[in-house]
C-alpha cells in the first residue's frame, strides 16, 4: 500500500507535466480554469498520498519506505552490452541483488524523515502558489506558460526530494534549474529578465557540472548511486559511510560546490536578487522558499559524508558563515522589497548551512520548513509593503530616523561593500567568465587559422 502511495506522490506531478506539456505542444487552447483545476487536483492527490505515508510511518515506526521503478539504464560489467532496457514497472527489487552491473541508472524513491517533510512542504507551497497565481495571472498572455513551468518545477522538486539515488536527485535538480531559469526570464520581451535568467542558468550549469562529477565519483567509490547504499545500514540521519576520508572530502567538496550554486552561497550569491524578475508568485515559491533550499537539502541528503569528514563539515560551516555575514550586510542597504527579502532568505539559508555543518540534522530541517513558509508569505505579500509600512507608522505615531552608530569612514566602507554586493558578480566575471571566454575565443581563432591553412586560404 505504501508503495502505491509513493508512486502516487511522484506520478501526480508527472501526469500534470504530461498534460500541460502535450496541450502546449498541440497548441490546444485550454482555459485558465482548466489549468488551475488540474494543478489543484494533482497537488491534492500528491499531498494526500504524502500525508498518508507520513501517518503510516508514524504509526508503524517504519522509518524508510523505498519505491523502485527499476533500472532505466543498465550497462553490464561484461564487454557486450545490451543498453537501454525499457523502463520497467517492477517494483521493490533491490538492484544490488545478483550480478553487479557496470553502471545502472535506477529510478528509485525513498521516503524517510528527510524526504517526507520536504515533499509535503513542496506540495503545500506549490498548491498555495498555484491558487494564488490562477488569480494573479488572470488574463495574462503567459498564463499557460507559467503553469507549465510551475508543473515542471513541482515535478523537479518532488523528484529531488524523494530521490533514492543520486541520479534521480540529479534529474529532479535539473528540472528545477531549468524551470527556475525559464521563470526568471518569464517576461522575455524585456532584456533585463533574459539577461538575468541567463545568468541564473549559467551558475546552475556550473553547479550541475560539479554535481555530476561528484555523483560519478560517488558511483565509482561506492559502486552505486543509492543513498541507502551510501548510508550503509543506517536510516537517515544515522547512516554511516565506509569510503576513505580523502575521497569523502573530494566528493563532498564537489557536492558543496553544487549546493553553493543552487543555494546562492558565496561566491554565487549575486544571482539570487537578480532572479526576482518573474511574476511575484514565482519569485516567492522559487527563491523565497523551495529552490533556494535545495542546496541545503542536498547537504542533508549526503550528511553521512559530512559525518565522516570533519574537514568537510568545517568547510560547510565556513561557507555558511561567510555567506551569512555577506548577506546580512547586503540586506541592510536594499531599498526595494524583493531584493531585501532575497538577501533575508540568503541569511537564513546560510544559517541553515552552518547548522548542517555543525552536525545538526533535525534542526536545519525544521528551520527550512519554517523559513520557507514564512518567506513565501512575505514575498507573496510584497506588494502590500506600502500599506503595511503606513499602518506601522500610524501605530507607532511617526517615523523614527535610523542612524548608524558606526564611525563615518568605516560606515562608508561597509555601505559601499554592501551596495556593490561585495562585487561578487564582477569578481566571477573577471576570474571565471573572462578567462573562459578568452580561452574559447583563442581556440576559435586557432581553429580558423588551422582550417584556413588546410584549405589553402591565405588569410
Amino acid at each position, binding site marked *: 500500500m505504501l508503495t502505491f502511495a509513493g508512486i502516487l506522490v511522484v506520478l501526480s506531478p508527472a501526469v500534470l507535466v504530461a498534460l500541460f506539456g502535450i496541450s502546449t505542444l498541440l497548441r490546444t487552447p485550454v482555459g485558465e480554469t482548466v489549468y488551475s483545476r488540474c494543478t489543484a487536483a494533482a497537488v491534492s492527490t500528491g499531498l494526500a498520498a504524502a500525508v498518508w505515508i507520513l501517518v503510516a510511518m508514524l504509526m508503524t515506526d517504519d522509518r524508510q519506505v523505498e519505491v523502485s521503478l527499476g533500472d532505466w539504464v543498465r550497462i553490464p560489467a561484461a564487454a557486450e552490452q545490451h543498453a537501454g532496457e525499457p523502463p520497467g514497472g517492477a517494483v521493490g527489487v533491490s538492484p544490488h541483488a545478483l550480478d553487479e552491473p557496470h553502471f545502472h541508472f535506477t529510478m528509485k524513491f525513498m521516503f524517510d524523515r528527510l524526504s517526507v517533510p520536504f515533499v509535503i512542504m513542496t506540495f503545500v507551497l506549490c498548491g498555495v502558489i498555484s491558487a494564488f497565481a490562477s488569480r494573479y495571472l488572470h488574463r495574462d498572455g503567459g498564463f499557460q506558460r507559467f503553469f507549465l513551468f510551475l508543473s515542471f518545477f513541482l515535478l523537479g522538486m518532488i523528484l529531488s526530494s524523494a530521490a533514492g539515488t543520486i541520479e534521480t536527485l540529479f534529474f529532479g535538480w535539473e528540472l528545477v534549474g531549468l524551470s527556475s531559469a525559464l521563470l526568471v526570464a518569464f517576461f522575455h520581451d524585456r532584456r533585463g529578465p533574459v539577461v538575468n535568467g541567463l545568468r541564473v542558468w549559467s551558475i546552475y550549469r556550473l553547479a550541475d557540472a560539479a554535481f555530476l562529477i561528484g555523483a560519478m565519483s560517488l558511483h565509482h567509490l561506492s559502486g552505486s548511486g543509492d543513498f541507502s547504499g551510501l548510508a550503509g545500514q543506517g536510516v537517515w540521519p544515522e547512516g554511516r559511510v565506509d569510503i576513505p576520508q580523502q575521497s569523502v572530502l573530494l566528493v563532498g567538496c564537489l557536492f558543496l560546490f553544487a549546493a553553493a550554486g543552487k543555494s546562492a552561497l558565496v561566491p554565487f550569491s549575486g544571482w539570487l536578487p537578480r532572479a526576482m524578475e518573474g511574476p511575484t508568485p514565482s519569485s516567492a515559491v522559487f527563491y523565497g522558499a523551495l529552490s533556494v533550499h535545495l542546496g541545503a537539502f542536498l547537504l542533508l541528503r549526503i550528511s553521512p559524508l559530512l559525518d565522516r569528514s570533519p574537514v568537510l563539515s568545517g568547510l560547510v560551516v565556513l561557507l555558511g558563515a561567510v555567506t551569512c555575514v555577506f548577506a546580512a550586510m547586503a540586506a541592510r*542597504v536594499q531599498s*526595494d522589497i524583493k531584493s531585501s527579502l532575497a538577501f533575508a532568505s540568503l541569511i537564513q539559508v546560510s544559517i541553515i548551512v552552518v547548522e548542517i555543518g555543525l552536525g545538526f540534522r533535525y534542526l536545519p530541517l525544521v528551520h527550512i520548513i519554517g523559513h520557507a513558509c514564512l518567506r513565501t508569505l512575505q514575498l507573496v505579500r510584497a506588494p502590500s509593503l506600502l*500599506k503595511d509600512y503606513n*499602518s506601522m507608522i500610524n501605530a507607532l505615531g511617526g517615523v523614527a530616523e535610523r542612524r548608524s552608530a558606526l564611525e563615518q569612514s568605516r560606515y562608508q566602507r561597509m555601505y559601499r561593500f554592501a551596495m556593490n554586493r561585495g562585487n561578487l558578480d564582477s569578481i566571477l566575471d573577471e576570474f571565471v567568465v573572462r578567462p573562459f571566454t578568452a580561452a574559447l575565443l583563442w581556440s576559435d581563432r586557432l581553429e580558423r587559422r588551422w582550417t584556413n591553412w588546410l584549405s589553402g586560404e591565405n588569410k
Partner: protein
Amino acid sequence: MSVVSEPVPEAAVVAAEIRELAELLPLQGPITAFAFLNPLQGLEHLPVFDALRQAHEIFGCEPYLRESEYRDLVARGRITAEDVQEILQQELGVERRSVAGLIELHEMRLSQLLKLVYPVSLNELDWVLAEADSLRRFQSTIPLEHRERLLNETRHWLQMVETSGESAALQLIRSVYRGGRREVSEQQMESICAGLLWKICLQRLESVSAAAGSAAGLIRLRDAVLAVTGQDPDELVHDVLSGFCAGWLDQGYAQWQMPNRDSGFVAAFCAVYGQSSTGQRRWLRGLPEALQGLCRGAVSPVESICQSLSGLAVGDADRRSLIRQSLLALRGWAGMLWQTETRPDRVFRSSPNGTLTEFLAVRLILDRLAAEWLIREHSGGRKTVGDTVLQAVSQTAQQQPLELTARYQAFVLLQLAELHGWSPQQLFELSEEGWSELAGAAVAFDQLERRRVLHLAFEQHLSRQALDAVSRRATLPLVVPQTPQVQIVTCIDAREESFRRYLEEVCPEIETFGNAGFFCVPMYYRGAAEATFTALCPVVIRPQNWIVEDVVYSLEDSHRQRAVARRILGRFSQRFDSGSRSSVSGALLTALLGPLATVPLLGRILFPHFMAQMHSTAGQFVAPPAVTRLRLERPEGVPAGPHDDGIGFTLTEMVTMSERSLRDIGLTSGFAPLVIFMGHGSSCMNNPHESAYHCGACSGSPGGANGRALAAMLNDPRVRRRLRERGLDIPDETWFIGGLHNTATEEITFFDLELLPSSHVGRLRKLRGVLAEACQRNAQERCRRFDSAPLEIDQQAALLHVRERSEDLAQTRPEYGNCTNAVCFVGRRGRLRGLFLDRRSFMMSYDRAQDTTDSMILARILGAVIPVCEGINLLYTLSAIDNRGWGSGTKLPHNVTSLLGVMDGASSDLRPGLPWQGVDIHEPVRLLFIIETTAESMLQIMDRNPNVAAICRNGWAQLAVLDPQSSRIQRFLNGRFEDYEPRLGQLSEVAASREWYAGRRDHLPFALIRPQLAVVGAHEALVE
C-alpha cells in the same frame, strides 16, 4: 552629432535648459498619492497630434494603437466605414481631388485605411513579401469585375507589345514572362499581371522618390556605440544608476541610510563610488578619478555637465536634444528626483535644490566611461571614442532606408492597383508627373497618419454615440423631483454615474449632484489613528488649512488605551518584520514561528473572505473609538498651521468654502431635509497602486473627511446665518451628513450620526435601505466587466463577489477605477436623468440659470474640471495605447522600491503610470466634454483661462456645448463651434439598467431608461 567643437557654453544657459526640459519628465510623485495628470503635460502648448508625433520621437512610445488593432475595432463594429469617411471628409475637405487621373484622393485613402489585405508596417514588409503569395496572386478581396478586367487587359497588352515589339515594355514583360507558349492559363496570367504591377511600381518609384530619407539622428554617444558595437552602454549605466537612485530616494525602508544622503546627490554618489573598491566592475574602475573634480568641489555640477558636453563636441543645437535625451533615458528615476525636488511637501525625505542637475552631471560621466569601455572591449583597444562616432555616422549614412521605403510604397501601390483595377499598361504609360503625384499621395499618408485618421474615426464613433444620446435625451423634459426627500452630492467620478443612476432608479425622489470629490474643501487631514497629515485636494492645489480628527472627550480614556495597544502591536510588527530579515533573530523567528505562517498564507489565499472578516473583527479591538469629531474651527486671526493652535478653519473660511461648494453645483434652493456629501474611496489588498483607485480629486486618498467637514460646517447655525445674509437660505429642517462610498466593496459609511436630530432618524433609516439596494445593483453592473464573475450573477452574489475581490491577496483588479471613461458632462442632472451612460461619463452639476452673465461660476468650475478630467482621461488613454511606454506595464513583476514607487523585477527604471491590469478594458479616446452653456460663454472662458484654452484649442480633449434651453448641440472643431447634426435613429429604451446590460461584457451603446423619464409623482415617500 556634430564634430565641430564649440566654446564651453554658459553654465547658466545649461542650468536653465535642464529646468525647462525637466517638464518632459513623468509627473508622478510618490505612488501613495497617485496623481492623474496628462503624461504629456510638457507638450500641452502644442496641438495634440503634433505633440503626439513629437512624443513618439522624444519618448519612443506609440502615440496610437497599432493599425491591426484599429482593424480589429473595425471588425468589432467600434469603427465603421462611415466614421472613417467622415473623418476623411473633415481632413480633405468636400472638394474631390484626383490623383494622377486614376483615383480620387479620398477613395485612395479610404482603401489604404480599410481595404488593403496586408496593412503591413515597414518592419513586417520583408516577411510578408517572402511568406505571403502577394506578388503572384491577387488579393482575395478584389472585386470580380476588376479581376476580369485586369486579366483581359494584361493579355491584350502582352499581345500588343509582342507584336509591336516596343523595347522598354518588352524588356519589362520578359522579366516576368518568357513568352512563347500561346496558351496562358488564368492562374498564370494572374501571376504575370501581379508580377508586372510589382515591377512597374518598384521601377517607377525608385526613380521618383530619390529625395526622402536622412541619417537617423545620432544624438547621444550611446547611440553611436550601440550602432557600432551592438552593445548598449545604457545597460551598464542604468544598472548603477537605478540602484543608486533607489537608495538615494529611499524614504526609510533600508536599514542603513546612504552616507552623505543629506549633503546632496553628488556628495552621496562620491561616498559610494568616489573610492575604488576591490573587485569593482572593470568599466567603473576609472570612476573615482573621473569623479574627483565633482567630489572635491573643484567643479560645480553644471560645470561638470558643460565639460562632459564639450567632451562630446556638441553643438548648440544638439546640446538641447542631448540633455533632453540624457534626462529621458532613465526618466522614471529622473522624474522622481525632480518631483521630490520641486514638491518637498509630498515626501518624507525630499531632494535638495539642484538634485536633477547633479544627477545629470553624474550620468554624463558614467555615460562616457561606459562608452569608452565598450569601445575598448570591442576594438581590442585600437579605437577611440571619436573613431567610433565617425564610423557610426558613416554607417547610418550608408544604411539606405530608401530602398526599403521604396519597396514598401511599391507594395502599397500594388495592392491599390489590384483593388482599383489599374492595369499594368495604365501604370506603365503613366507620366512622370502622374507617378510623382501617386507616390506623393502614398508617402504623405504614412503609417502614423493612417493610425491618426483611424484613431479620429474611433473617437468619432464614440462621440457620435454620446452626442446623439444626449441630444435625444435633451429633447425630453427635465426630470427633477418636485419635493426631493434626499439630496446626495457625489464625486464627479465616472464610477458614481451608475451609483447615482441606481439611487434614482430605486427611489425617484432622490436628487443627485456631482462635484469634485474634495467638495471645495482643500485641507491637510490627520485621522484619529494616523500619524501624519495627508493632503485632501487635487494635486495642483496646496491646502492652507490643517484638520485633525479627535476622539470625543468622554471616550478619551479608551482612546488612549487603544492607542497604546496599537503602538505595542505596531512595535511588535516592526520588530517581527525587521527581525525576520536579520540573522540571529531571523533564525529564531523562522525556525520557531515560521510554520505558523502557513495559517495566514493558506487563509489569505484560499479563504480570503473569511480571513478578511477575522482580521477586521480583531482590528476592532484596537481601532480608535467610533465617536469622533473633526477639530474644525480656529479663532479668527490665528495663522493656520500643523500645530495645535493652527488647526481648523476660521468662520469666514467656512462660510466662503461652503458657499462656493453649494453655488458650484447649483444647490441654492429647494433643499431636501437630508443632504448627503458622499466622498469616495476604495479598499484592496496587496496592491501598490491602491491610491489610483481612491478619489482623484483628493490626491489619491479617500475623500470622506472632506464631505464630513463640509456637512459639519453647513450644520453650524452661525455659518447658516452668514450664508442667509448672502442670499443662500438653508431651511432649518435641513440636515447635512458626510459619507464615504467605498467603490470597491460598495459599502457606505456615514459620519457624525450621533449628532443627527431625532426628527431625521427615520428618514435616514429608510435612506439606508435605498442605499443598500442601490449598492447591490451597482455591484451587479460592475460584475459584468469582470471575467471571473459569471454573467448571470444575482445581486447578492455580486455584492459578495466585489467584496471578495477587494479582500483577495492575489487580485490584481480589485476594481476598474475610472477605466472606460469617455465623456464628461457639465450641467444639470435633470437633463440627463434616465440616460444609461455605462459608467463612462464624469458628471459635474452646474446650473447656468444661477450663474452670472459672464459665467463666473462655470469659469471656476471648468478651471478645475477640465484639467483634472483631461488628466485622468489621458493617463488612462495613453497607458492603454502603449502600456509599456506610458503606463507601468504589467503588475506581475512589480517590485515596490524606496517606498515611493514600483519597478519591474529586480532592478529597473521606476515605472510611473497605470498598470496594464488597470487599463486592459479601456477604450483609448480623448475625453468629450459636453457642457450645458452657450458657445459664446465657452469661448469667453477660454479667452480668460489660458490653461482651459490650451486643452480645448489644442485638442487635448473634445468639446461640445449643449444649449441650456433646447437640444441644440455645438461641437468645437478647428477652433470654432459648429452645429452638430444628430443622426436619426431611435435611442433604445429599456425598463431598467439591468435589462440593458444583462448578459453583455463589452462596451454598450447608451440607452434611455423609460420609467425614469416619467415626472416624479407620489412614489414611496421617505417621510415617516
